[in-house]
Structures are given as C-alpha cells and as structure tokens.
C-alpha cells in the first residue's frame, strides 16, 4: 500500500502521542476521507475520521488534521490510557479496503527510580558500586534491558559514553559496577530503560558530593520518516556536535546482519548506490547531508547516520531514518548514462516539477568530498569551463538542459542536477567517455583581421538532416542565437548549404567585439543535441569600433541585455536554418522503422512521404545523380516486400488466434489463485457504486405529472397515438 507512517509509537501514561501518515499527492487522495481506526478481530473500528466522526471512547482526546498540499495527515491522541494499547491503522477511503498503514500504539508504564542513600561504595581505587531504587514494574522485554549509561566529561579529553548493563538483584534494587578510568574525572550515572531517562547521580572521585537530579522521562526517539516518489530523491540531514568535525561520518542501512555501510567520508560507497548517493559536509563542522537519487523500491528501510564506526563500544550519536519509496507516483526519469566522445559534446536534461518554482537550479560534478558547482541558473560557472558550458531553462516543460562541449577524458564521472525547494527533484547522471568522433566538425579556432570577411563553418552528418541547426554566440550567461541571414554590414549571416551539409556563419566586416566563442548546434523538437565550439580571434587593425548605431544589434556582449537566451521550442521560429535549407515538416524515415503506438498494427511501417523526401533520403544513402530512377527502384523493391509482409501477417494472425484459444487452459497447479467473491453490505465499498433509489430520485417532480420516462421515450409515445389514429 502506498500509505506510510511510523510502525510503532510509544507514549507515556497520561501523555499524548502524534502519528503522521504520508500518502501520494494525487488529486483523489487530497479530497478523499482520511481515517484512523483501531483493529479488532472482525474489523477496524473508526476512531476518528476527516468527515467529522469520532468514536465515543476517544471523544475530546483525538484530533485529525489533513495537509493535502504536503501529502500528510496527522492524528493526535492525548490522555493515553492502558486500554489504548493496540494496533491501529491510518488510511484513506473506506476502512477495510487496504489503503492503510498499520501502527502499533504502546503506552509505557510509569515507574520511578531514585538513587538510594549511600549508594556509592568505594570498593577499590577504581571500582565503584552504584545502586538505585525503583518503584513499579520493569517489563523485561527480549531485546531491551535496563542498563546504566556512564557518561563523563573531561576537561582535557572529549566526551565519552559507556554503557554498562545493570543487574536487577532484588525486587527493587539495581546494581551497576563500573571501573574508573585512569584519569581524573567526574562520572555521572544515568539509568534508563523503555520509559526513558529517570534519574542521574553525579559521582566524583572523592565520593563526597552526591547530586541527585530527577530528569523528566523521555520517550525513545523514533526514526525520521521520509516519503518519497519512485525515481525521486531524498535529502537527509545529520547534525552532530562540532567535536566530531574530523571523525569519520557514515550512512548505513539496517539489515538482518547488522548495518551495512552505504556511503562514508572515507570514500567507500556500496555498489548499489554508486552514483546515486552523495555525502556532502555542511557549513557547521560535524554535520553533513546525504542526497540519494533515482530511488528504487528496495531503498525503503531503516538507515542510520552516525559518526565513528557502527557498533563501537564507545557510543557515538546516531540517527535513524526511514525513506519509503511510493510506487504510485513516479518521477519521469530521463537518461542516466550519457555517452560522449573526446572533443564532442553532450547535453544533460534535468527535469523538475513545472508547477513549482525553484530559485536555484544547478549542475555539479561529484567529487570525493562533495559536489562542485559547475553552472547555475542565476549566473556564473567556474572559469575552467569558459566557452564550454551553457544552461537552457524551460520552465514550461520543467526541464533545464546543460550543454557541455570540448569534452576531455577527465569530464567522465557523475554529475548531479540539483534544485532547492521542498519538492526536490535531484538526479544524478553518469557521463561516460567512449570512443568515437564528434558529429559536427569544423575549424575550432579561427584567426581574422579586423575589417575582413570571415566565415565560420560547421559540417554536420546525415543524421542531423531533419534537425534544426543554429549558430549562437557564447557568453557566461548563455548562448545568444544569431538570427539573421541577410547579409548586411554589422550582423553575421547564417547560411546553410544542404549539398555540402555545412552551416556557415559569415561576418562581412569583422570587428573586435566579434571576438569570442561561437557555438554551432543542432536541436530537435525542443531537445538540444550536439554542439561544436569555435573560437574567433580578431587581431590587428585599429581598435576603433564601428559607430554605436550600427553596433546596436544584440550581438555585442557589452550592449546586450542580461537576459538569458532561450530557444523557443516551436519550429516556426525564424531563428533556425529553415529557409535557406528548404526544410519542411518532419524529416524522412530513419533507417529502422519505429514501433509507433497504433492499434492493430501488425506490419512494420516504412513511411515514405513524398517524392521530395525520397530525394533527400538518397543524397545520404546513394549517390546524388540517380534522381530520376530512384522512385522506380523504390516501387520495385517495395511491392515484393509488401506481399511477403502480408503473407507473414496473415499467418501470424491465424497462429495468434489459435494460441489465444490454447493459452486459456492455464495449468492451475502453477498458480495460487485467490479469488474472493464477497458480498458487501455497502456496494460502494468496492467502488461499484450504485444509487439504490435511482429510479425515484432521478427527477424532482414539480407539477406531479407522470414525467418519469426519459425524453426519447416521450417522443415515441407522442408519435404512437398518431399512428393508432390512422
């Protein structure tokens, strides 16, 4: 079930307890009834529900509050009594329909503990016997024992904690023996069991002082619960004292055989979490934060974050966390592994929730001690990435794309898309450098003299034929697309040569301000593809600029506004290489036919749309001279293929129907069927809703005439008498 809550809650007698249950944030769940019921042998009796019902035993003690925007509802039960102990369920909808989570409520008995007089007996130079008296009954549970926690504070050394088990000697006495350390210190003793800390005794070496303090009882801390979506991410904060700044910090997952390390500050990462988990130190030393992305169902469970080593005798502070991965709502994934070639480029798409706004979005590269920011949506990035990286944000779709080119081998690794905000959508991608050549080729550095005519060229392969191509000028805020293709004085012209498959950027009279990085790139239906960077260096001549008026084009970075350059996703924009390339509509068919979701489609579809496109297709695959005969060749090849496919298709259909008949006879032995046919008092429970009195309540009769029948019937009855009369 997709409801999640704490498995066990403990409250004190007379106290109160709060239970928080999570549910998937769908539209139905936000409006549906939330309930809290107590389990019994027959059914689960409602204690309190969001519709306003409250059981008599709990009147005035229980409250239920729903927070639909956050996907949680909270129940609070106060004035706990012993008869409240039992199993409860928090859920949505109707009581016994399974959309619930079981919670065990325990009320701990009250008991007192206080130190006896003359409790310390100095037995030797280093042995001390402490004893406490207790009133009440200590339930001896299997895993929990009463013990004393000795904790001392040293002025020179760090805080140390040691637990020593206690021996319940007589009915009311607890004896614990401790050995003094070899250094001078003050020791104190705390005794606590399930009910929590009860009493503290401060003992000194000289055994003279005796401070008796009574602590208020504390309920043991439960685990912090996280409710996350499948494929989503979780952020876990672990705050420890500053004295642990240089100690090893870790996160481990509880299992049957102990706690297995997931990630720690020494660089150890469990293989199942490689690339998915990140441990990052916080500003205050001793605290750290853990990010986990691409959450799977198996990630649900109990985790422990701590410092030092798990299971050490010296008790370092720990924290329990329990992320629950909800299978109902899933985050769209995108690609996790991206392949790039040396010198080529990659584009990383990071998705977020378009309905919410995030102030900060960035990409960072995972390193051993954290994640270094490469580029953010606000502005800058680190200098070593100059000319290489660009971010495009599309708030409508909820994606931000980062394009990185001029790849080198060291770029391989894990990159994290991070967003802030409470509904986080962090994801990690792995960039792998593989063998191969970049698709876009051309001169990477061009030197030019001021005032001369310069052309930057970018050659693309066949596979980018149907893509939209562009040139843009890079600056540290983005890449401004270069628009015009008319040749005038100041702005460069974008030209596309289809025969040579090259994209040109021509400057009629190049100026000093034209110096910089220019990117040639391809994009397809709003997704950015490959890019290539060219650096234009302008030398010589007078450093005089052209008059201001002519330079007022948006190419000049000094005058250009600080606006981000956003590529519109529609194809009707004049910014792309459209007119010069005579590019129209969708491209020709690809080499392999795609299985498009169409019903009853048995034959693979090879779509060849028009004569023009066949010509385009053949420029890539055959030589360009065979323009005229190609249509005939196509037909002569296509017709026999179609005949063969038809034959195969009919055979397939016949076989399939035979198969259909046969597969109904499934061997029952291999399945364990559990068919429950049940009648329910209220058919609504199964969703088979029915308004029993529908015939009566369908219409309100005002006027009293028999207007029971529906409108079409009325016309019929009106016509009939006419027929009869005839």
């Amino acid at each position, binding site marked *: 079930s997709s409801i999640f809550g704490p498995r066990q809650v403990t409250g004190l007698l007379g106290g109160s307890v709060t239970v928080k249950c999570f549910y998937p944030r769908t539209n139905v769940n936000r409006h549906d009834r939330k309930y809290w019921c107590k389990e019994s042998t027959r059914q689960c009796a409602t204690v309190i529900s969001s519709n306003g019902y409250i059981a008599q035993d709990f009147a005035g003690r229980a409250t239920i509050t729903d927070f639909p925007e956050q996907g949680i509802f909270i129940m609070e039960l106060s004035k706990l009594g012993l008869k409240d102990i039992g199993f409860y369920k928090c859920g949505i909808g109707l009581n016994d329909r399974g959309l619930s989570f079981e919670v065990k409520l325990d009320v701990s008995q009250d008991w007192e503990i206080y130190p006896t007089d003359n409790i310390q007996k100095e037995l030797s130079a280093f042995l001390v016997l402490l004893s406490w008296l207790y009133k009440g009954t200590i339930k001896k549970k299997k895993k929990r024992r009463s013990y004393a926690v000795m904790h001392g504070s040293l002025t020179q050394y760090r805080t140390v904690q040691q637990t020593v088990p206690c021996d319940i000697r007589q009915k009311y006495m607890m004896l614990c023996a401790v050995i003094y350390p070899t250094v001078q210190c003050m020791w104190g003793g705390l005794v606590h069991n399930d009910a929590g800390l009860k009493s503290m005794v401060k003992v000194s070496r000289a055994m003279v002082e005796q401070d008796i303090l009574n602590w208020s009882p504390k309920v043991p801390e439960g685990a912090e619960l996280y409710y996350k979506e499948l494929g989503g991410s979780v952020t876990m904060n672990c705050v420890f004292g500053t004295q642990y700044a240089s100690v090893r910090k870790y996160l481990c997952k509880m299992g049957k055989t102990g706690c297995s390390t997931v990630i720690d500050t020494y660089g150890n990462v469990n293989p199942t979490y490689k690339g998915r988990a990140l441990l990052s130190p916080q500003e205050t030393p001793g605290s750290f934060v853990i990010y986990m992305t691409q959450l799977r169902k198996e990630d649900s469970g109990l985790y422990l974050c701590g410092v030092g080593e798990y299971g050490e*005798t010296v008790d370092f502070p720990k924290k329990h966390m329990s992320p629950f991965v909800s299978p109902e709502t899933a985050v769209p994934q995108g690609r996790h592994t991206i392949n790039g070639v040396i010198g080529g480029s990659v584009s990383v798409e990071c998705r977020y929730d378009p309905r919410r706004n995030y102030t900060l979005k960035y990409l960072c590269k995972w390193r051993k001690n954290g994640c270094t920011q490469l580029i953010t949506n606000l502005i800058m990035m680190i200098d070593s990435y100059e000319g290489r990286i660009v971010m495009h944000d599309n708030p409508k779709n909820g994606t931000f794309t980062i394009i990185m080119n001029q790849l080198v081998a060291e770029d391989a690794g894990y990159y994290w898309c991070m967003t802030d905000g409470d509904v986080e959508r962090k994801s990690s991608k792995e960039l792998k450098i593989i063998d191969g050549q970049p698709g876009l080729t051309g001169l990477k550095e061009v030197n030019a003299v001021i005032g001369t005519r310069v052309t930057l060229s970018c050659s693309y392969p066949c596979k980018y034929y149907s893509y939209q191509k562009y040139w843009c000028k890079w600056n540290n805020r983005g890449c401004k697309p270069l628009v015009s293709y008319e040749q005038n004085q100041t702005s460069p012209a974008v030209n596309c040569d289809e025969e040579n498959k090259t994209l040109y950027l021509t400057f009629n009279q190049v100026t000093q301000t034209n110096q910089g990085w220019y990117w040639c790139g391809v994009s397809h239906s709003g997704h950015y593809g490959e890019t290539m960077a060219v650096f234009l260096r302008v030398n010589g001549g007078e450093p005089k600029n052209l008059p201001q008026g002519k330079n007022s084009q948006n190419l000049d970075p000094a005058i250009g506004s600080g606006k981000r350059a956003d590529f519109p996703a529609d194809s009707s924009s004049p910014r792309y290489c459209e007119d010069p390339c005579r590019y129209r509509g969708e491209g020709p068919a690809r080499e392999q036919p795609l299985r498009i979701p169409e019903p009853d489609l048995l034959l693979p579809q090879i779509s060849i749309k028009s004569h023009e496109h066949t010509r385009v297709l053949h420029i890539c695959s055959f030589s360009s001279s065979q323009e005229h005969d190609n249509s005939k060749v196509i037909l002569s090849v296509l017709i026999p293929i179609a005949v063969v496919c038809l034959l195969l298709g009919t055979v397939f259909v016949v076989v399939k129907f035979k198969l259909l008949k046969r597969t109904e006879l499934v061997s029952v032995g291999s399945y364990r069927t559990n068919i429950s046919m049940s009648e329910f008092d209220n058919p609504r429970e199964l*969703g088979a809703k029915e308004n029993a009195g529908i015939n009566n309540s369908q219409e309100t009769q005002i006027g009293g005439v028999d207007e029971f029948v529906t409108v079409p019937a009325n016309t019929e009855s009106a016509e009939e008498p006419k027929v009869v009369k005839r």
Partner: protein
Amino acid sequence: MKTSLLLWGVLAVFLGATLVAGYFEDDEKEEHTLVDNKCKCVKVTSSFVASKDNPEEKVLERNIRVIIPLKARQNISDPTSPLRTTFVYRMTELCKKCDPVEVELNDRVVTAEQSNTCKSSDTCYTYDRNKCYTTTLPFSYGGKTTAIQAALTPESCYPD
C-alpha cells in the same frame, strides 16, 4: 572479597560493549508486481518462497488476487444498466504491458508501448480511483427537462 569484586569489575568491562540499538524487523519478502489492473481489479505478484518439498530451495510463487464486484453494473458509467453477471478474466490480456514506457534509441528517448495489440478501450468492472466517472441524468424542473452531469465517484472528480 576484593578479588571477587575485582573479577566482577573485569566482567563488567567485557560486558561494556552492549548497545541500545533496537531496530525494526525488516520485511525481507520481496514481492514483484506483474499486473496491477485497476480496471478489472486484478493484482498478480510473484516472489521467491521456500519450496514445500525442499525447504532449502526457493521456488517462484505467483499470487493472483481477483476482487469481483458483485453489485456492479454492466456499464459502470450508467447506473441504470442491469447488473453484471459475467466476469471474464484473461491472463494473457491482463499480463500485457500496455503502459507507455520510455525507450532509448541511439540518442533519442521515445515513448512507446511494449505490446502489439493494446486496445485502448476496455470494459471495466469497477472504478479506477484516479479517474472521474460521470453520468448524465435527466433533470426536470418546471416542465423543462435538461440533462445534467452527475459524478459517480465524487472524490475523483475534483478539478486539479
């Protein structure tokens, strides 16, 4: 006396390695969901369990859970249609994966269905919680009868 207490002290030191951690027991049983059909209310899961003959071995066990709504109408969107008396469950149809899935082809990510014959319309026996079901009722007032829409599943019919 002192030596016995000394030994007792030494024992205490050895016992000093006890910890508090009372951890919750994990549900180790991993169930893999094969079919979760909300329309016909069928859930098929599979898991590895110890075999009855040989407890050491693990066998794949499939659990099929079918909940039959006996008071459902033949057309769930029309409460005036007669009661449904025939319920047909075909494993081959139920096991088809018809939800679109993202598939990577070279550089592009495409959304496609994994099965061939996926019929988009299917007769449902019960209501899917996430869908809104309405019916039109003739409503007559003052001699005029208009058709109005009424929600059969009110919780699901709230606008986003």
